[in-house]
């Protein structure tokens, strides 16, 4: 059964590029149908041009950077055992708190990075304006010199075992790496913490400490040196 003009208009209004046999047959059945179809196609062409929004130039590179992050492949047997134990211990211990729940700096660094390290790296974009970096670090009585500040792509406050700290992502020639500054925490200088295919080098600073975190293939040595040289703490009076 052939469709009438009203049905045809609804059909091409819903799907102007429809090329099924019934639509084509209807289209060819009269000049009125053909004109309506041509008009719908012309409108569609304009609509398709109108939605073209250009993504930020760095979007694709940032997305590809995600694949540099290790995937945490879970072994379900230990997880099931852990879950049973946690039920026994109680739900209170399950929550990632912003208080002194960590037994050690090492445990904190591993837990913190597992919590949001990859997600924060995924948000890394252009190098941040110096003012944005200074705004946060000044409140923590710290400062990054030109060289280090010129690498920072993300900075935000974060909880540490003792008060507030800063979570930063820096752009290096080995890809993005993470620095966590802990103003009130002393670490074992030079210690390397390994977790989930990541490694964190701990650095004691004038005030507090920092963890420089990279994935398995990344070498943190040069960034450790830069943090020692370029990250100043306890120097800001203002």
């Amino acid at each position: 059964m052939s469709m009438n003009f009203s049905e045809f208009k609804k059909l091409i209004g819903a799907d102007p590029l429809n090329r099924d046999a019934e639509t084509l047959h209807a289209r060819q059945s009269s000049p009125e149908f053909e004109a309506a179809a041509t008009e719908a196609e012309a409108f569609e062409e304009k609509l398709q041009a109108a939605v073209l929004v250009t993504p930020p130039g760095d979007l694709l590179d940032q997305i590809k950077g995600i694949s540099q992050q290790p995937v945490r492949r879970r072994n379900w047997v230990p997880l099931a055992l852990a879950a049973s134990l946690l039920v026994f211990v109680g739900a209170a211990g399950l929550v990632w708190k912003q208080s002194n729940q960590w037994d050690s700096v090492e445990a904190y660094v591993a837990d913190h990075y597992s919590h949001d390290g990859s997600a924060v790296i995924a948000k890394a974009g252009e190098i941040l304006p110096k003012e944005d970096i200074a705004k946060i670090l000044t409140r923590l009585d710290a400062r990054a010199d030109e060289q280090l500040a010129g690498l920072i792509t993300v900075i935000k406050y974060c909880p540490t075992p003792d008060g507030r700290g800063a979570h930063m992502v820096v752009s290096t020639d080995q890809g993005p790496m993470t620095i966590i500054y802990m103003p009130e925490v002393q670490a074992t200088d030079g210690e390397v913490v390994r977790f989930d295919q990541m490694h964190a080098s701990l650095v004691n600073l004038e005030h507090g400490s920092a963890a420089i975190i990279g994935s398995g293939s990344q070498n943190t040595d040069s960034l450790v040196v830069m943090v020692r040289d370029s990250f100043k703490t306890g120097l800001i009076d203002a």
Partner: protein
Amino acid sequence: MTNDTDRTHRFNELAEAYSTDLYRYAMWICRNDALAKDLVQETFLRAWRALDSLKDVKAAKSWLITILRREYARTFERKVPPFTDLEKVTIEDNDELKPDERTERDLLRKGILKLDSKYRDPLLLQVVFGHSCAEISEQLGISKSAVMTQLFRAREKLKAQMQKDGVTGNVHELF
């Protein structure tokens, strides 16, 4: 190691194939460039983690759209972002457009922004991703006939809006 390389290769292919369209879709549904970028990054971050669950590469586009829509729902529930002034967003411009064609395109963009999400969502899935009505039906979980009705009405509303703005000369009030 080979598996990791393959995985990265698969992921990068998805990023190259779909990141632009996902960004466009995100931009038009949330109307905020910063959130759109975040949404697309978060979408791919989740996709990277769950890549092994994607068995059929033909389903990748719908899979990514589903991730993005869920993430948008979560984000939007947490906070309503300020809408971006579209003039500040880089939009692919066709320099060869005549002034009246440019005006028409701007009116169309304004119309898309004004559409209720009930009409905008299926329209964007069709126009940005080239989804068929059946695919939109599956993506949105509504019947194919409902999709066709919404698509038809979306276009009618756009045409009506353009006619209204064109007639009253509202082009200077865009965005």
